[in-house]
C-alpha cells in the first residue's frame, strides 16, 4: 500500500473520530441532567412568554433530533420533521461556522474566549512536552546505556516516583516552594506589563511559565524515561547492534546511527497516546497556577456551571488531541520505512 493511501485512510479515520466526539458532546449535554439552560426555563417564577422567548433564544423550541422532542426527560416527537431544523443539525451547522454558543458567565462567544486561551495551553503543553521528552529521552538513553548499574537504578527509581506523583499535588508543592522564592504565583503575566518593551514582557511570561512547565516536565519525564530505556535496551540487544559494534563503530556512533531511531518508534506511539493524558495534566496544572488556558477554562466553567463554555472547551480539547494523534501517526509512518509496504 502506498503512502498516500495510508495517509488518506488515517485522515478519514480522524474525521470520523471527530464526528463521533461532536455527537457525543451534543448528546451528553442533552441526556444528562444539569444543563442550566433547561433548568432555568423550568423556573416557576418565569412567565410563559419569557420561557417561550428563552426557548427560542437557545433553540430549545425545536426537537432535539428526528423522533425525539427532548432527551431528558425523554419525550418522543414526530419523525417527520425536516432534519435540518432539529437542534442537532443546527448545532452541527453552527460548529461548522465556528460557533460554539455564548458563555453564561461572560456573555461573550465561547469560540472567542477559547481561541484566546487555546494558545496559552498550546504554549504550556508545548514547552512541557519538549522539556519532558528531551529530558526523558536523555535520561532513558543514559539508563539503558548504563543498564544494571547504580546510575540506571537511580534513573529508574526517580522515574517511577515521578510517575506516581499526582500532577496537581506536585504543582501545589512547587507553588509552595516558589511562593517563598520570589516566583509569581498565578496567571501568565504581571498586570500592566503590556506597556513594557517586548523583551521584558517575554521575560515576565517566562517567569510565570517556569513553575507550571517544571511541574509538567517532572510528571511526564518519568514515563518517557522508562519507555525510552526499555525500548533502547530492546534495540541494543538486537543482532544489528552487534554487527555495528563488530564494524568498529564507537558506542556513541552506534547509539546515534543505529539505535536511537529504532528505539524512538515506541516513544512516538506513547507520546501520541499520551496526548489525552497530557491534557489531563494541563487541566490540573492550569487550575493550580491559574494559567489562562483551556484547562482552567474547564475548571472555571465547572465552578460557574457555565455549560456552553464547558461544552466548547471539551470539544476543542478533544479535537486538538485527535489531530495531534494523527500527526504523531504520520511521524511514525515517516520514521519506520517498513510501514509503507505493509
Amino acid at each position, binding site marked *: 500500500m502506498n503512502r498516500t493511501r495510508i495517509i488518506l485512510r488515517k485522515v478519514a479515520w480522524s474525521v470520523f*473520530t471527530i464526528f463521533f*466526539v461532536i455527537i457525543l458532546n451534543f448528546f*451528553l449535554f442533552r441526556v*444528562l*441532567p*444539569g*444543563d442550566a439552560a433547561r433548568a432555568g426555563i423550568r423556573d416557576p417564577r418565569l412567565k410563559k412568554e419569557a420561557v417561550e422567548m428563552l426557548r427560542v433564544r437557545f433553540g430549545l423550541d425545536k426537537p432535539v433530533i428526528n423522533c425525539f422532542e427532548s432527551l431528558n426527560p425523554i419525550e418522543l416527537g414526530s419523525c417527520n420533521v425536516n432534519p435540518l431544523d432539529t437542534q442537532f443539525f443546527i448545532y452541527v451547522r453552527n460548529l461548522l461556522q465556528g460557533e460554539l454558543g455564548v458563555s453564561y458567565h461572560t456573555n461573550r462567544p465561547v469560540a472567542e474566549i477559547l481561541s484566546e486561551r487555546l494558545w496559552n495551553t498550546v504554549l504550556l503543553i508545548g514547552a512541557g512536552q519538549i522539556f519532558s521528552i528531551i529530558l526523558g529521552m536523555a535520561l532513558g538513553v543514559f539508563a539503558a*546505556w548504563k*543498564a*544494571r548499574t547504580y546510575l540506571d537504578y537511580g534513573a529508574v527509581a526517580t522515574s*517511577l*516516583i515521578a510517575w*506516581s*506523583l*499526582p*500532577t496537581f*499535588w506536585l504543582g*501545589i*508543592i512547587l*507553588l*509552595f516552594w516558589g511562593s517563598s522564592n520570589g516566583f509569581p504565583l498565578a496567571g501568565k503575566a504581571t498586570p500592566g506589563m503590556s506597556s513594557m518593551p517586548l523583551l521584558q514582557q517575554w521575560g515576565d511570561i517566562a517567569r510565570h511559565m517556569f513553575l507550571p512547565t517544571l511541574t509538567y516536565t517532572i510528571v511526564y519525564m518519568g514515563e518517557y524515561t522508562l519507555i525510552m530505556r*526499555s525500548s533502547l*535496551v530492546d534495540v*541494543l*540487544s*538486537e*543482532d*544489528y*547492534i552487534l*554487527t*555495528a*559494534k*563488530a*564494524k*568498529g563503530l*564507537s*558506542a556513541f*556512533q552506534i547509539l546515534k*546511527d543505529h539505535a536511537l531511531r*529504532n528505539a524512538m518508534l515506541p516513544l512516538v506511539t506513547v507520546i501520541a497516546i499520551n496526548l*489525552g493524558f497530557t491534557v*489531563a495534566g494541563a*487541566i*490540573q496544572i492550569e*487550575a*493550580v497556577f491559574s494559567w489562562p488556558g483551556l484547562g482552567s477554562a*474547564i475548571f472555571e*466553567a*465547572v465552578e460557574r*456551571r457555565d455549560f456552553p463554555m*464547558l*461544552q466548547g472547551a*471539551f470539544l476543542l480539547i*478533544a479535537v486538538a*488531541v*485527535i489531530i495531534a*494523534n494523527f500527526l504523531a501517526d504520520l511521524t511514525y509512518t515517516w520514521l*519506520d*520505512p*517498513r510501514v509503507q509496504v505493509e
Partner: protein
Amino acid sequence: MQATLQTSEQNNSLAARLLVFWRVFKKSRTGVIGLGMLVFMILVAIFAPLIAPYGRLETISVSDIYRPPNALHIFGTDDAGQDVFSNFVYGARISLTVGFFAAFISIIIGGIFGLVAGFFGGRWENFLMRFTDIMLVIPDLPLMVVIVALTKPSLLNIIFVIGLLGWTTTARVVRSQTLAVKSRKFVLRARAIGAGRGHIVSRHILPMVMPILVVQAVLVISLAILNESALAFLGLGDPTTLSWGQMLNYAFGRGAMSAGAWWALVFPGFGVVWVVLGLTLFGQGLEQVLNPRLDTHHLMPSRPNVRKEAANAKPIPSQALLEVQNLSIHYVNEGQLPARAVENVSFSLNEGELLGLVGESGCGKTTLMLALLQLLPSAGQIVDGRVFFKGVDLTALNEEEMNKIRWSGISIVFQGAMNALNPVRTVGDQIAEAIIRHIPTYPREAIPARVTELLDLVGIAADHRDHFPHQYSGGMRQRALIAMALACNPQVIIADEPTTALDVMIQAQILELLDSLRKKLGLAIVFVTHDLGVVAEMCDKVLVMYGGVTAEYADVDVIYNDAKHPYTVELLKAFPDLTKPKKKLSSIPGYPPRLDALPAGCRFAPRCPAAFDRCHTQQPSLHRIGTHGHIASCHLAEVGSTVPLRRIAPRTQK
C-alpha cells in the same frame, strides 16, 4: 516463567498456585517493596477507627485551624480545625475504595471486550476495536469532568464514571493476548475435538489471559486513584466524604497556601503517592515474574580480560596472521557458578588459509569467534589466553584500539537470516558506513561506486543498493553481509554459520563465493559450521569443538582420513558421502552438555561410543599426534595408548 506456568497448570489448587507464584515473585525486590507499601496502606484503611486519634470529620475546635504538627496532631490541623492525620487515615478508605471499585468495572469491561474481540474475531472484533480506538483518543479526564459536572458528584457516580472510561488499554492488551493464546496448540486441539466455545474460553483462554489481566489491573487501579484525586481536587468530588483529593481541594481552596499550612497540603498528596508508587512497584514485580527480562545488551562492556600466567610473563611471539593461544572464556552470572563456555582452545591461521570450525550448536564456536573480536556479551569474560593478530595481542587492547582492528583487520559475517542488518537503513548506507569509519580519506563521492562494486562482487545488482533489508531475500541478505565484510579490505573474515537457514542452492552459492574471494583477494577465513560436509571441499585446517573444548585440530586430510577423536568420527558419519551412496547415515544420540552442568571427566564421555571408566572421571588433556600439528583431546589418543578404536574404526578413504 514457562516453568512456573507449567507447574501451576499441574497443581490446580489455588494455594499451590499462589505458593509457586510467591516463590518467583519474592525474588523481585521492587515487587516485594511495592506489595508491602500497598498492604500497609490497606491495613491503615481497614483499621482506620483504631488508628485515627479523632473521629471521622470531627472538628476539634474551630479556633484550632491550621495548627502546625504537634504532639496532639502529628499532621497538624486543617481549615476546619480537624485533625489532618485522622482525616488522612479515613481518607485512605475513600481513595482506595474508589480506586479498587472503579478499576474493577474497567477490568470487567475491558476484559470482556478484549476476550470477545480476540476470540470471535470478524465483525465483533472490528466493531469493538474501532470503538476502543475512538475511546482511547478522547481525553479521559476532560470527559470525566464533563460527565460528573452534569450529574450529581456522589461517590457512586465518580466510581462509575472513572470505571466506565478506564477500560480502553485493558481491552487492547486482553485482545492481543487472547489472539496469541487462541492459536496455541492446546487451544487448537481442544477445538478440534469439538470443545464448546464457553469451555475453551473458561478453561483454556482465561487462565492464560489472567496473569496479564492482573498486571493490567494494578495499572488501572493506580490510574483510577490518580483520576479520583484529580477530580476531587478540581471540585468534582463528593463533598460529603473526604478522600485525599477532597482534602487537598479544601486546603488549597481555603487558604492553606497563604496560611503557610504545608502540612494540610503535603500529607494527603503523600498518601496518593504512597499507594500509586506501591502499586507501580508491585506491578513491576509481577511483570518480572510473567515476563522476565535480563536487561542486557550489546553495548554493555564484557568483564575485563584476565590471564592465569604471571603478569610479567612474556607472550610467545606469534608468526601467524591470526593465532589463538590457550583461550578460555567463562560466562559469569551472579549467584551462579561460572559457565565454562570455552576452555584452552588454540589455533592459528595464515594468509589465504581457510579454517573450518566445526561442532554442534552450543559447543562454544560463536563465543570463541566473538572473543576474537572482543565482542563478548556482558556476562562473558576471557579468563585465560591470548589472541594475536599480526603479532599484536588483541586481549590487551582497549576499546578504542580494538575498534581500529574490527572490520579493517578482522571482519565477521553473521547469519543474514537473523536481524544482522539494521531494518531502518538501506543496505548500501550500512556498507558505506564501514568505509567512512575505517578509511576516512576515502573520497566521499567515490563511495557509492565502491558500494556498488562490492555488491556486484557478491552478485547483487546495483539497483538494490538503496533498498532496505526487508526488500532483500534471505540469500541476498547473506551476500550483502559478505559484501559488507569485504568493505574495508580485511585480512581475516570470520563467517559464523553463514549458510544455516538458507536453502541448499543458496548455500552452495555462498560457499563458492567465499572460496573464490579467498583465492582472488588472499583472505584468511574462519568458517564456522555445524556441518562437517560443508567445509570438506574448501578448508585447509579443521578445528572440531565439543562442549567448549578442542576435540580435534588438524589439517583437513588428517581429519577425514585419520580422525582420532570419537566425536570427529561420529560427525563424519553424520553427513552423506557421495562416493558411498549406500552407506547408512547416523546421528549422535543426545545433546552437547549444558555449560553449567559439565560432566566431571571428558565432556563427550556421556555420548561417546568408546568411553571407558577413566573418561568419566578424568578430563583428557590435549595430545599431540605425529608432527603436523594434529591435536586431539582424548584418552585414546594418548601416546603409547594401547586401547584400540575398534568400535569406531576411522575410514581410510575419503
